[in-house]
């Protein structure tokens, strides 16, 4: 059997889910027997590949760039996993939703800036009015809650998904875990 292609993506999140993924430690070697990591913040591929079997998405959709990315990712992924609370609920990035992006930008780039007080309009992608979970943009196949999901959760869930064994996610993890 040829190895499955695995990708991990980092949208609006703190990278904690990726850290927890790496916390699988020596079990990563076991996982590497079953999958090839073809795209990830931790590998040096610039473009999302054409055909990916399993994609783990960390982070909420917060900018026009995130929105564009997630649509492309969905189109090229067989199985899309929302990894962690930001991807599933909006979590911490969504705490700006009640007050809106303008206030946040003002605070960061005007109020608290000592030099060059201006809101960036090039290079940095435009923020969406509200931060929303991944499944409000594209179909999500598996939800893996947690902030972050533990390394054990990752290991159990990924092993089950790769081997096709039954998977009981609420028994493993919860929001805020």
């Amino acid at each position, binding site marked *: 059997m040829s190895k499955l292609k695995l990708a991990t993506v980092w949208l609006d999140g703190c990278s904690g889910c990726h850290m927890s993924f790496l916390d699988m430690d020596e079990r990563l070697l076991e996982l590497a027997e079953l999958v090839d990591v073809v795209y990830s913040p931790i590998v040096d591929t610039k473009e999302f590949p054409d055909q990916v079997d399993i994609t783990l998405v960390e982070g909420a959709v917060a900018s026009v760039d995130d929105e564009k990315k997630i649509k492309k990712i969905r189109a090229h992924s067989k199985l899309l996993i929302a990894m962690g609370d930001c991807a*599933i*609920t909006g979590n911490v990035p969504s705490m700006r939703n*009640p007050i809106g992006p303008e206030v946040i930008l003002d605070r960061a780039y005007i109020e608290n800036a000592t030099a060059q007080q201006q809101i960036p309009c090039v290079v940095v992608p435009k923020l969406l009015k509200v931060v929303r979970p991944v499944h409000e943009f594209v179909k*999500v196949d598996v*939800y893996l809650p947690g902030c972050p999901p533990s390394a054990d959760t990752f290991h159990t869930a990924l092993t089950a998904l790769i081997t096709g064994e039954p998977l009981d996610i609420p028994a493993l993890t*919860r*929001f*805020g875990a």
Partner: protein
Amino acid sequence: MSESAFEVKTLQIDGQEVSARRGQTILEVAQENDISIPTLCHLEGLSDIGACRLCLVEIAGSNKLLPACVATVSEGMVVSTNTERLQKHRKTILELLMAERNHICSVCVANGHCGLQSLVQEQGVTHVRLPYRNPQLGMDASHERFTLDRNRCILCTRCVRVCAEIEGAHIWDVMGRGINSNIISDLNQEWGSSACTRCGKCVQVCPTGALYDKGKIGSDHPKYPESLPYLNLMREAQ
């Protein structure tokens, strides 16, 4: 004798033959028989109001779902507590609660000790299918010892009931209607300048992180609502 409180009713809950006293609620009888029905606004020691609808059960021969915490037993009743239909409704109720205000478990003082969070997990809710409302709601940190965070309030009114029924102060109540409902102290005054007796029972019975002790940081905020039946018992004995 037929109308006596000791009159025995026999009924079926989830296929199990059980007996009950007249006037008992379905929830009470289920709990006596180790049949678990999820609850959120119910708390032993407080009156029941059937607000959260999580304890809804099916009664054979009726299309109407009944809240087990306030529905009383009757002879020959056939009750189902965990059908597919009920599971579907419970999940939807929990998703509505999660979407209604700003529940961010990861940064909540009640993380790991929350009635809403644990029910969400127990009922197998892994995501919320409804769009989040993200309302702009205030906090009241005017009290010397406690904080009210309306973002985390589910309007179960346990605080209102414990303050009125057990403490006897009745400083909490609900203002507004429907989606605009909110918990207020006194006549919508700041908690800190209200007639609050500072007993802290509301904090202990709040199932979420809406009411919390200022002395607690991070997610280290276990609550101890199980003292209420004991308080009631001691008062009755006096």
